[in-house]
């Protein structure tokens, strides 16, 4: 177990979007603040800081997670992918196109987090879409366009 004293800096080695970083950080620094303030990756957004809204969702070792509920230091040795990295993935253009065509984006503040969930959940059923999307708050779209975009991607995958 990692032990760090309050007010002391500890060394953090991690990979973000395929790049390696070595930084000295405070133990209490949140992952989302590290990504945004230390690395300048501002595509990950802070909406509630209590794990409800899903705007700060990133991938930790390929799995969607709330970056406001993790300490940066707990990411030691791990690989993080933010929207800046996801937008280089081969699946990304189809997701972006579907979201735009279905008007699943308005203010766009919740969107990068939703993309993180969409891009990793390739094999879901239509019912599971609602379960996964329920982990993201969007106040603009009523979720209709987002759900349709996700359904379009599934349909395409299944060759419908």
């Amino acid at each position: 177990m990692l032990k760090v004293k309050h007010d002391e800096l500890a060394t953090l080695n991690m990979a973000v979007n395929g790049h390696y970083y070595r930084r000295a950080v405070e133990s209490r620094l949140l992952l989302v603040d590290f990504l945004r303030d230390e690395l300048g990756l501002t595509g990950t957004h802070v909406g509630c800081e209590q794990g409800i809204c899903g705007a700060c969702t990133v991938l930790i070792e390929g799995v969607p997670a709330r970056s406001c509920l993790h300490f940066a230091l707990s990411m030691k040795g791990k690989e993080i992918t933010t929207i800046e990295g996801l937008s280089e993935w081969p699946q990304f253009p189809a997701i972006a196109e579907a979201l735009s065509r279905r008007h699943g984006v308005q203010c766009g503040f919740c969107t990068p987090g939703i993309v993180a969930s969409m891009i990793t959940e390739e094999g879901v059923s239509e019912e599971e879409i609602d379960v996964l999307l329920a982990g993201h708050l969007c106040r603009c779209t009523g979720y209709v366009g987002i759900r349709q975009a996700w359904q379009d991607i599934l349909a395409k995958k299944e060759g419908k």
Partner: protein
Amino acid sequence: MTSEKTWIGRPVTRIEDGRLIRGEGRFMADINPVPGIRHAAILRSPYAHAAIRSINIQEALLRNGVLGVFTGEMINRELNPFPVGVSAPVNYYPIAHSKVRYVGEPVAVVVAENRYVAEDALRDIVVHYDTLPSSMDIEPAKGQLDPSALLHEDILNNVASSRRFEYGRCEKELKQAEVVLTNRFRYPRNTAVPIETYGVIANYESHSDYYTIWSNFHGPFTLHSVMAHALKIDTHKLRLCSPSDIGGSFGVKSAVYPYAVLMGVVSKLVRCPVKWVEDRLEHMQGSSSATQRITDVTMGLSCGGKITALKLVQYDDVGAYIRAPEPATLYRTHGNLTGAYDIRNVLVENYAVMTNRVPTGLIRGFGGPQLYFPLERMIDIAARHLGIDPVDMRRRNFIRIDAFPYTTASGAVYDSGNYQAVLEQALEKSEYNHFRHQRSETSGSLRYGLGVAAVVEPSGSNMGYVSLAFTPTERMAQWPKSGAAAAATVAIDPLGGISVRLDSVPEGQGHETVARQIVADALTVPMDAVRVIVEMDTATSAWTVSSGSYSSRFASAGSGAILGAAQKVRDKLLVLAAAKLGIDVSTLHLHQGWVWQDKQKTVWSLRRLAGSIHWNPADMPKGIEAGIHETCYFTLPQVSAPSVDDRINSSAVYGFLIDIVKLAVDIETGQIRILDYTTVHDAGTLLNPLLAQGQIYGGIAFGIGSALYEELVYDNNGQLLTGSLMDYFVPTISEMPKHLKLSHHSTPTELTPLGAKGLGEGNVMAAPAAIANALSDALGIEVLHLPLTPQTVFELMHSHQRKEATRT
């Protein structure tokens, strides 16, 4: 540059999406426009009403990394109180000194090297309070309140403003009516909950006394002068900037302005630029909210169901300070108080009452949900009382199609509409008659209900309506206020690059895309030849008091300004081409980016003309200025100041919608499930049907939240019980009905150049009423307040059972 198509009216996908989906949007928290920014955190009051006995900041000042700690007293010394929209003596500052009046009111500000340290230092500040009794009632006390329960000295019973208006002979008609029905309704305090919170960066320059303040403020820019007055500076010294991306607002971010002023002063005192990003807990307790409203409705009717008189007594809870632009919630709908109905005798009494809750302001629908919940419920209650079908009841009272343009009793001019046709379309689309027969079926503990709401949707607010809070005599002493103006600038650079600058400060509505459509059409170029700039900067953008994004004004005002500016550019180019060609300008037009003479293409392209203006200005014909940078300010002349008899055309244009809801309620659990939701809008010409659809879906979600889940709940001491997103429930996808049907009926307005009306708020006004009507239908019990949580439904059924029991 060529273009075959016209773009207006087409479901064009958005230019904004590219950057937003990639996380390349630029929101307030993302930007650092000046070097040397330090970070602020705010200490807030834990009490709803208390005198501040002392504040000790010594410990906080000593903490490593802290640059400054400022109390309300230190800050407010630099300020005037904000001007307020009423004559009552309310001294509203962005931070408390001597007394706190709501939970979450700012008390002190810390500036530190980062937010973590600033928050640490908040805990070092010691404040001693003497608590006072909280005043939580909306309805003014009948007797005199104890002086300790007064929020502000010299304001009797906490009533900040009250006015009475009578149009026609309402009292007389009510006395003579065959049927008179009375009910009291309660609309809850709810709020907008954009996923991005408030953000402010303030930079004070001591050498010039200039303030530059970046924030996610989106207007109305009437508040620019309110801020400058508070800062004790001439208005040109205050530069307000908003970034290209705002993460939703739905009105609530107009109330970031006190924080903009607060950080402005803090920047001055600490002598460096200061950034403050609100956290979610701060947002829930200290940003803004809709007014809670009690409405006493008295309706006079004939036995045949014709409404002869309508009396509304409205009590708005405006919170601890009546903050500008309040009491606007009471007046935004003043012209359309009678909704879709032809009612000539109207009486309205308005009371803006202060309580120990957060001050109120714009929230999507702004005044509409507060009006239409009681009004549309009363239509159903009256229908049931008279044994008339609720749909027939509406038909009998609708403004007839041959009556447009129709002037309401209180002065609105409904430009156009066909309410009957929209209703019929909605009935068909929703299979209303089919459901009507099914609804008496029950299955186990489920009961089914059907509800309708008809809403006249105002868009493009008249800057003059707020002055109705003053008497005609008081208004005589002021400058008249009117209009719903918007500004836009179209420019062409030396090689033909076209740019458009807006004053609309969008928060997700897609104004960049629509502006592109409008300008590409006007200049006959492809859409990607047009760049749209939505960053607001009061030092460089064309703007006016009504600029901004609120009251669904982009379709009704903004689009007209954009078109006007593009047409100015087009006309200038054609005049120049006519001079170059030595022919009459009236024979020329633009087509595919070239100047054509009738059916003959000339040698002059838009690009070549632009080049010649920039590169060869000495050769310009007389009367044509060098440069192509044309601004249009657009307003409708009909949007005039209130009349001496207190009538007002409170909005520029008026759309219409019908919502029909089918729901199931479980009488054992109180849970409501919406089975089917239909909405039919008449917003005139749709500028972009895809974006219109997005506004409607979003509006329905918002309206469902207001109807079923959302309320800022305070206890009797003024403690906020719903301070996080765990307690304040915002709809997720699971709460959205699977069966959503929407369609349009188009009655274009002749008032706006593109025939468009706003449509972003209508469903927020209609959904709570339609859902409450459906629940009343299902249970046979009249719903008089919201939100309809399982607990509310349960209590409703049981109090009804108790009443039934006492009756028998």
